[in-house]
């Protein structure tokens, strides 16, 4: 099995995800409109309620990285979750029969999911800029793309693992809402994470999305509670771990 051949398989799966995304206009619309709505309405609404302990403003600038992270999270989970629908529709049987390593099929799917997540993240980044969010630097914005990609890989991997393990789309959907809500709410996307009660602080600290949000704040706003060294290490390990987990569970799928 040559490298070329494996790359072909990765590209095939990536292309497949891209074509599906491109064909599904409602998905594009939905994917973009939710976080934009959040930015437009929820951001200003929440701004009035909080203040940093040191007196820093909790404004639209503060919320923008959180909403971008949220959008990357949703897109990634959805992207990895296509596996469960493919399982149900039978498309997966055909894919799994291909004479190539499963891990590279999973990798191609992950690449597709991450690309879509990145498209959404970038659209939001631009939109937030248009409505007045001030980014600290151009290089920061570019670095934020890297943060989105790496976190995206982590969440796609997680979704692929879950979708490989769960049998029905309904079950997967339930699991996703069960997972996505706490991830978002306990990530510091909606509130400053300094000076939280210890039990809440602990929950926020074990949430991988927290590090994604914090890393994005560091890139885009130049300030973050968690040092960028810590958050970048955490999201990198998270991504590597979840990718392996996703590949492993995907490899275990049995079709009868």
């Amino acid at each position, binding site marked *: 099995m040559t490298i070329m051949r494996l790359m072909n398989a990765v*590209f095939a799966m990536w292309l497949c995800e891209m074509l599906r995304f491109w064909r599904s206009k409602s998905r594009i619309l939905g994917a973009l409109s939710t976080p934009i709505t959040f930015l437009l309405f929820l951001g200003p609404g929440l701004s009035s309620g909080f203040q940093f302990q040191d007196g820093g403003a909790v404004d639209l600038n503060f919320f923008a990285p959180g909403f971008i992270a949220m959008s990357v999270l949703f897109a990634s989970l959805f992207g990895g979750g296509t596996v469960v629908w493919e399982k149900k529709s039978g498309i997966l049987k*055909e*894919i799994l029969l*291909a004479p190539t390593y499963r891990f590279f099929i999973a990798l191609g799917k992950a690449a597709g999911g991450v690309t879509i997540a990145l498209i959404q993240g970038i659209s939001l980044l631009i939109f937030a800029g248009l409505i007045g969010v001030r980014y600290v630097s151009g290089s920061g914005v570019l670095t934020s793309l890297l943060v989105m990609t790496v976190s995206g890989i982590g969440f796609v991997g997680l979704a692929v693992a879950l979708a490989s393990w769960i049998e029905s789309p309904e079950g997967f959907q339930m699991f996703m809402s069960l997972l996505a809500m706490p991830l978002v709410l306990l990530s510091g996307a909606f509130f400053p994470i300094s000076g939280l009660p210890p039990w809440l602080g602990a929950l926020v600290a074990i949430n991988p999305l927290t590090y994604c949000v914090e890393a994005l704040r560091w890139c885009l706003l130049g300030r973050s509670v968690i040092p960028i060294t810590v958050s970048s290490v955490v999201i990198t390990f998270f991504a590597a771990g979840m990718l392996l987990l996703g590949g492993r569970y995907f490899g275990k799928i049995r079709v009868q």
Partner: protein
Amino acid sequence: MRWIRMLYAIETNDITKQFGGIVAVNNVNLSILQGELFGLLGPNGAGKTTLINMLSTMTDPSGGGARVWGFDVVADAHLVRQNIGVVFQDITLDERLTGRENLDIHGMLYGLDGKVRRRRIEEVLALVDLTDRADFLVKTYSGGMLRRLQIARGFLHNPHVLFLDEPTLGLDPQTRMHIWDYIKILTKEEGVTIVLTTHYLEEADHLCDRVAIIDHGEIIVIDNPEALKNRLGGDVITLELEDSADTARLRALYEDNGFVRVISRGSNTVSMTVRDGERKIPHALNLASRAGISILSVSLHKPALDDVFLHHTGLTLKNKETGDAGDYGRSWIRSTGR
């Protein structure tokens, strides 16, 4: 790669599959020649799909083994996959992509490089008459087109062995005939060894070089369709008489004139088993009219594989489908997830 010359495209050795307590495939031994069009005939739930799934490395056998194109289906699953194509019973195309895109992605997964892939896609599209519709989304395709595209995809990568699981299930008669033509072209022009499952008797009869009748996971009989039918002794001519009083006289007359196995079913019919039924009818009618017995109707029944099935199992395929779909059928459905 293979050091020992291979005689059979597929060889199974007591291959067995159990799901929970149910034996779906039981000690099956098959040897399928290269280039052969081999049929697995049996009612729903007989174990055909499970057998195909094992041969195509989708499911591991619980016992026994098989070699496909010389490779072991468990130990060399990877090499088996490189040499086979599978056309599943259910549609496994991505309906959000076009026909061409479905083929393209399949070709990439099987490692066909760009130039070869494009040429090959044109070839298979032409073979199944889908060139005009290649760039339409698959969700706009009719049932027959879906099936044709799926068959085209199955042999896109030039497999040596192609598995077709119920290739014409649920299609109208005309489309079915078309699919049959494509399958024939495939064996003739591309020299592909084909294993197809079906529960349509005409299909096995019309297409296959050899047929294995399978029921409850076991092979009941393997032979070519003609030989299977000949085992039953020939065609059956049935005559309906105007006057039931003549029945016994006509029977005696036919028996005296060399007809064998003459029986009467009902009070005014006479049936006999003959070879070359079409050619015997005029003679039979002549005899009757000379004896002054008037005949209302004549029918000729050519033995079909259904009769063979009946002969070997005591059940017709139709009976099996309706009457015997009880516990066995349900547990099958549960165990395969279909």
